[in-house]
C-alpha cells in the first residue's frame, strides 16, 4: 500500500522540467535568427564560388557565346517583388478582420510565385547551355537553382497558408501562420533581388 502510494507520488513528479527561456530573446525570434544565419551561410557559399569564378579566375560573365535572359529575369523580378506586396496585404487584411483580403492576397501570392517558378523552368530549357558547360554555367544554375528550390519551399508553405485561409483558420487575434510564412516569403524575395542584381546585372 505504502509502496503504491510512493510510486504514485513519484509518478506525479515524473515530468520534464518546466520550460523557461530568456525573455530577452523569444524562441520564435531566436529560431528566425538561426534560420537566417544558416541561410546566409548557404547562399554565402554559392556567392563565394560565384565571385571566385568571376573575379579571381576572370571568367567572362556571361561566357561567350552565351547570353543571360536579363529581360525575362527582370519581369520575373517584378512578379516576385509584387508578390511580397500581396503577402503583406494579406497580413494587414487579417489584422483588420478582412478575410477576403487575406484569401485574395495569399492566392495572388501563390499564383505569382508559381508563375515565377514556371517561367524560370521554361528559361532553363531555352537558355542554350547546361550545367556542364563551364564554371560560368555551373555557378549560374547553382545560384538560381538554389533560389528556385527556396521558391518551391515557399510555395508549399503558401499553399498550406492559402488552404488554411479558405478554411477560416486565421483571425485578427490568431494569424501567426500568416506572419511566419510571410517572413519566409520576404526572405526569398530579398535573396532573389540580390541574386538577380549580382548574376544578371553586374
Amino acid at each position: 500500500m505504502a509502496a503504491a502510494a510512493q510510486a504514485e507520488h513519484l509518478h506525479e513528479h515524473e515530468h520534464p522540467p518546466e520550460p523557461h527561456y530568456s525573455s530577452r530573446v523569444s524562441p520564435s525570434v531566436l529560431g528566425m535568427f538561426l534560420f537566417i544565419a544558416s541561410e546566409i551561410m548557404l547562399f554565402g557559399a554559392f556567392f563565394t564560388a560565384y565571385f571566385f569564378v568571376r573575379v579571381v579566375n576572370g571568367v567572362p560573365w556571361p561566357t561567350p557565346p552565351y547570353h543571360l535572359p536579363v529581360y525575362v529575369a527582370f519581369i520575373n523580378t517584378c512578379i516576385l517583388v509584387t508578390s511580397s506586396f500581396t503577402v503583406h496585404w494579406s497580413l494587414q487584411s487579417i489584422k483588420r478582420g478582412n478575410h477576403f483580403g487575406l484569401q485574395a492576397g495569399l492566392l495572388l501570392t501563390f499564383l505569382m510565385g508559381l508563375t515565377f517558378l514556371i517561367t524560370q523552368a521554361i528559361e532553363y530549357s531555352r537558355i542554350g547551355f547546361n550545367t556542364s558547360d563551364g564554371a560560368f554555367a555551373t555557378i549560374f544554375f547553382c545560384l538560381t537553382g538554389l533560389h528556385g528550390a527556396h521558391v518551391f519551399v515557399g510555395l508549399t508553405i503558401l499553399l498550406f497558408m492559402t488552404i488554411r485561409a479558405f478554411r477560416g483558420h486565421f483571425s485578427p487575434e490568431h494569424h501567426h501562420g500568416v506572419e511566419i510564412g510571410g517572413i519566409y516569403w520576404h526572405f526569398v524575395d530579398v535573396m532573389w533581388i540580390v541574386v538577380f542584381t549580382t548574376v544578371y546585372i553586374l
Partner: protein
Amino acid sequence: MRNPLRSETEAFGFVLVVLVGAVVIIGAAYVNTWVGVAAAVVVVAGIVWWLFREPAETARQPKLASGTPAGTHRVLILAPPGTGAVSKPAAATEIVVVVPALASTVEALTGAVDDRRADAEATAQRLASQLPHARGEVGADDPVLAVEDALREFGADQIVVVGDRQTAELVRGRVTVPVASAPSGNAV
C-alpha cells in the same frame, strides 16, 4: 542589432530597403560595370549600418503606468542576485521583491539560465523572508524587463531599485511609477 525578419512588417520593410539598394546598383551598373560594383559595396555597407543601428521605436515606447487597490501601498523592490539585505520601505503594506535572473548573452541566447534562475530564486526568497508581507519573485534576465513584467502582473505604487543607479535611471525612463534607488546591501 536590428533583426529585419522579426515580424512580417519588418521583413516587408527589409524588402523595400533591398529593392532601393538594387535599383541604385542597377542604375550605376548601367553606366559602367565597375561603377555598379562600387555602388554595390556602398549599398551593402549602408544596409549593414542600417542593421546595426538601434531601432528608434524603443525610445518611442510609451511609459508603463501602474496602480493598486485603494488602501494598499505596494512596493516593488528590484534587487540584483546576491543582495545581502534590504530594509522595509516606509508605508509599504505589501512588498514584492523581484530578482532578475541576470545571465550572460550566451546563456540568454542558448536558454541555459537554470543556474542563474536558481541564484535569483535563492536571493528573492531570502530577502522576502526578511520583510513583513513580502514575497519574492524571479524576474527576466533584463532588470528593466523584469520590472515591466512585474508591473503588468502585480502593479506597484513605488519602485525601489537596489544597487546600480544606472538601472534606476533606465527604469525611471520606462515607468510612470515613482522610482527610488538604494545602495546595495542596505536598501531604503
